[in-house]
């Protein structure tokens, strides 16, 4: 048997976390945890290069049965949809840990929580057994709850409990869904099973699909978050410590969109096709609403938090466009959002460490004292807006093309989200960085130090790389999303619109 690399990706952070707890030296906590996360990153990069691009199925599969009567077992695998998200997770954690030097109390518990969180998130992306998936999904809440609740800002307890309860409520329904799904198919598959690949072989009635889509979908919608289930997000993001926000925005939110794509579209295709209008409407509302609310924020961290609602709306729109380009765009947008919003939160954290405020009005003219920082912020803002040549453009472009093929009206409305993104980010930049220094306290601020540069540079490199040459990433994603669409076409009478086949485009070209 091959080396179980996927299990190792989950086990390594756990081992690191236990190590940090057992070594009773606070000053060793940071080096130890960063080492652990870098080793994990090494494993993830190895996985990236060993992965057979162009294959649709799961690779590096590990499978063994745990408990026959329940039909539950350890089943891991990675495909084009999850691979980039796994790598993104492994990439963001060392950076987030490096950005955690301002954590000064209970350092070991903090680092251990972060590493356990990493293991949980990786597990969610890799698990192919629904019960194991759920275990990771729910277990991951606990470290995040502690991270927000212990090391967050003033209203941290409120935010932590709200975060936990919202997510747990969603998961409760999903758990009922998973259990009933496992038993619903037991007649067809000869015994209850929670194995995702086996479940794909079962036929569900239309009614069952709708109920189960609802049970799974609500949980994922809360996580994404899809409007109107987003109200936990600003609180959690704002109150979490910098690294917590980075991980929340960077990878945690992706779990919801990933779940919709991985489970809802494939297991409940009929329901998915029928519910496209509902989700598309909610996605577009999310895009526009998130952006408009972001414009009026006075707290820069809250602004970035609401921008996430808007960006994740693009992801959901892409996924439910049910076209190759839309799905590809959705997946790549998840990665892009993880990088750009992650970096924005890091930058906000850096300025917060200097000034201990995040009110936009407390800043002004910072570019003259912190030119490098201002440059980095502008760069990230452009990436987030979707300037061609940077990564944000690729994702939004694909999502808009993909959704224009199947949902032209929604695509047009969503395009305004891009404009609004320019408004809230550039206006914030203008108020914070341009002009004269308005607040005396800002005059003595130092520019980026070495540690901060080490944090920013790798992310900036990836942002440019994915913006200029996204082909390898798109090639990894395409076969897997095509397989999802083929399955939908096979199970329903939905036909995926081909690129260039819609009549109105043909008319335009003809004229």
């Amino acid at each position, binding site marked *: 048997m091959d080396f179980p690399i996927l299990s190792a990706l989950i086990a390594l952070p756990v081992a690191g976390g236990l190590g940090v707890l057992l070594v009773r030296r606070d000053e060793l906590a940071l080096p130890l945890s960063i080492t652990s996360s870098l080793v994990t990153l090494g494993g993830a990069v190895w996985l990236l290069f060993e992965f057979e691009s162009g294959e649709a199925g799961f690779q590096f599969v590990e499978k063994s049965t745990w408990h026959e009567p*329940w039909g539950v077992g350890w089943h891991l695998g990675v495909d084009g949809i999850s691979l980039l998200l796994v790598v993104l997770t492994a990439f963001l954690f060392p950076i987030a840990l490096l950005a955690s030097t301002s954590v000064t109390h209970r350092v070991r518990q903090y680092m251990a929580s972060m590493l356990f969180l990493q293991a949980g998130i990786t597990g969610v992306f890799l698990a192919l057994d629904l*019960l194991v998936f759920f275990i*990771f999904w729910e*277990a991951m809440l*606990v470290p995040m709850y502690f991270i927000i609740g212990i090391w967050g800002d003033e209203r941290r307890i409120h935010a*932590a409990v709200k975060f936990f309860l919202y997510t747990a409520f969603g998961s*409760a329904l999903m*758990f*009922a869904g998973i259990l009933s799904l496992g038993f619903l198919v037991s007649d067809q598959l000869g015994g209850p099973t929670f194995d995702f690949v086996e479940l794909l072989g079962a036929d569900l009635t239309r009614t069952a699909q709708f109920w189960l889509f609802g049970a799974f979908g609500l949980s994922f919608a809360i996580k994404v978050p899809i409007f109107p289930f987003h109200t936990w997000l600003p609180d959690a993001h704002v109150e979490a410590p910098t690294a917590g926000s980075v991980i929340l925005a960077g990878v945690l939110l992706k779990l919801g969109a990933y779940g919709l794509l991985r489970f809802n579209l494939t297991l409940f295709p009929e329901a998915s096709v029928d519910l496209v209008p509902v989700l598309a409407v909610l996605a577009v509302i999310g895009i526009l609403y998130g952006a408009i609310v972001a414009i009026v924020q006075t707290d820069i961290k809250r602004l970035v938090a609401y921008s996430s609602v808007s960006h994740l709306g693009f992801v959901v729109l892409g996924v439910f466009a049910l076209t190759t380009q839309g799905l590809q765009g959705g997946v790549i947008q998840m990665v892009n959002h993880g990088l750009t919003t992650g970096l924005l939160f890091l930058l906000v954290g850096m300025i917060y460490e200097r000034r201990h405020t995040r009110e936009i009005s407390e800043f002004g003219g910072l570019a003259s004292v912190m030119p490098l920082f201002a440059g980095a912020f502008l760069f990230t803002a452009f990436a987030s807006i979707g300037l061609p040549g940077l990564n944000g453009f690729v994702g939004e472009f694909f999502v808009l093309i993909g959704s224009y093929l199947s949902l032209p009206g929604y695509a047009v409305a969503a395009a305004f989200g891009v404009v609004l993104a320019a408004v809230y980010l550039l206006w914030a930049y203008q108020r914070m960085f341009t002009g004269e220094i308005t607040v005396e306290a800002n005059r003595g601020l130092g520019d980026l130090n070495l540690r901060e540069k080490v944090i920013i540079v790798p992310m900036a490199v990836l942002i440019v790389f994915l913006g200029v040459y996204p082909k390898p990433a798109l090639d990894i994603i395409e076969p897997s999303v095509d397989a999802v669409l083929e399955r939908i076409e096979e199970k329903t009478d939905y036909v995926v619109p081909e690129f260039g086949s819609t009549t109105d485009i043909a008319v335009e070209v003809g004229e």
Partner: protein
Amino acid sequence: MNLDFLAVAPTVAIVAAVVLLLMVDVTFKVGHRWWGFAAALGFIGATTASVWQWVEHRGADGELFYSGMLSVDGFSSFAGMVIFPVAGLGVMAGWQLVRGVGKRGAEFVALAMVAASGAHLMAASADLVLLFIALEVFSISLYVLAGFSRKGDGADEAALKYFLLGALASAVFLYGVALVFAATGTTSMYGAQSFLDATLILRPGVLLAGIALLLVGLSFKVSAAPFHVWAPDVYQGAPGGVTGFLAAGAKIAGFAALARVLVVPLGGYIDDWAPAIAVISAMSVVIGTLFAIAQTDLKRMLAYSSVAHAGFIMTALVAGPAGVADMWFYVATYSLQVVGAFAIASVVSGALTGKSPLSDFTGLAIRSPMLAAAMALFMLAMAGIPLTAGFVGKAAVFRAAIDADYLWLVILGLVAAVGGLFFYLRVIVLMYMQPSAEGVPAPRVPLGAGVAVSVTALVTVVVGFVPWPLLDWVRAAIPL
């Protein structure tokens, strides 16, 4: 008459240890070390005997002994394997109380052992009359234990309340036994089973009334709503050192009796009692959760949470025999969490006092990190968070209920479980996210409580990660 020493070995071990304990204590006045030694002897002996029974009898048809009074099968032996260790841990956790009441400590230990033996007999009795006697042996010991500290702050009230309501419930139960006897002509559970299987009762009114009364009586013992009103006062009033034993013991014994009564004699009437069980379960889950949210005292909060847990456990019983294994899994793991959580409460708030205000736990993570970590673990386990035994228990009972087409009950239970997070998380918030009050010393952890907390926490985590062996075992713990 089928006489077999192994069938009564657990009971004999306990009774012998109790007699030895009291005789030696009266004669030589050797003090608490001897009590501990005798208790260990009794509990270890009884556990060993239960394991032996398990090895001999699990998976096979139950054998009846002593004129059909006792049944030895996977069910009764597994019950012994749960009851005696849990009771031992409970007594260990309350050792501060034993030492704190002076010479009366010997009585405490003896009563706890007798109660454990009664609890085991409740699971093993094959005759409704013996079941009633076992129930009384168990209950009367607990009435005394609940008021044991004799301190003014509610212990007397708790004991009296427990006694009066408990006596009423016993009477109701006994009436149920009488009505079942009237309907079937026998008090033997297996006799009633074969009678009911072979006979079509055209007017089952008497039998159904009997079933209802049995249900009410046993629901009282397991503190299921709406028969739960005693639980909060008793849990809060009883001295800290005994509450864990009391809570865990009542759950194990009550559910063992309930499962056997429902599945063996009344198994053919599942369509009549399953809906009733479902309603009681739903009420317990909802009422327990809602009332727990409003509490400011940890023990009172855990009392209401135990009402909710009684509901969760009953969720498994709607599936009839198929749910018994899942019920056992939940009962076994939950009873350990209860013992652990109350052991911590007795360390933090005192083993002789009744009340345990939540404010005692403020900032505990700073003062005593290990204690806080264990408490957080028990809270998460009771809330049903994965990678703890509590999650597997919930998965097990909900799985059984879904298989029996009680989806509404499962959804209600899951939503209530989320509601439960409100109060479980509050304890964690207090311990971890609030600063410790100035000048409050770290609680000193006595050896017994320390061992009890460590063992229960360890089992909770290990079973959370690797539940498969236990899940396999409980499948053999069905009354046949």
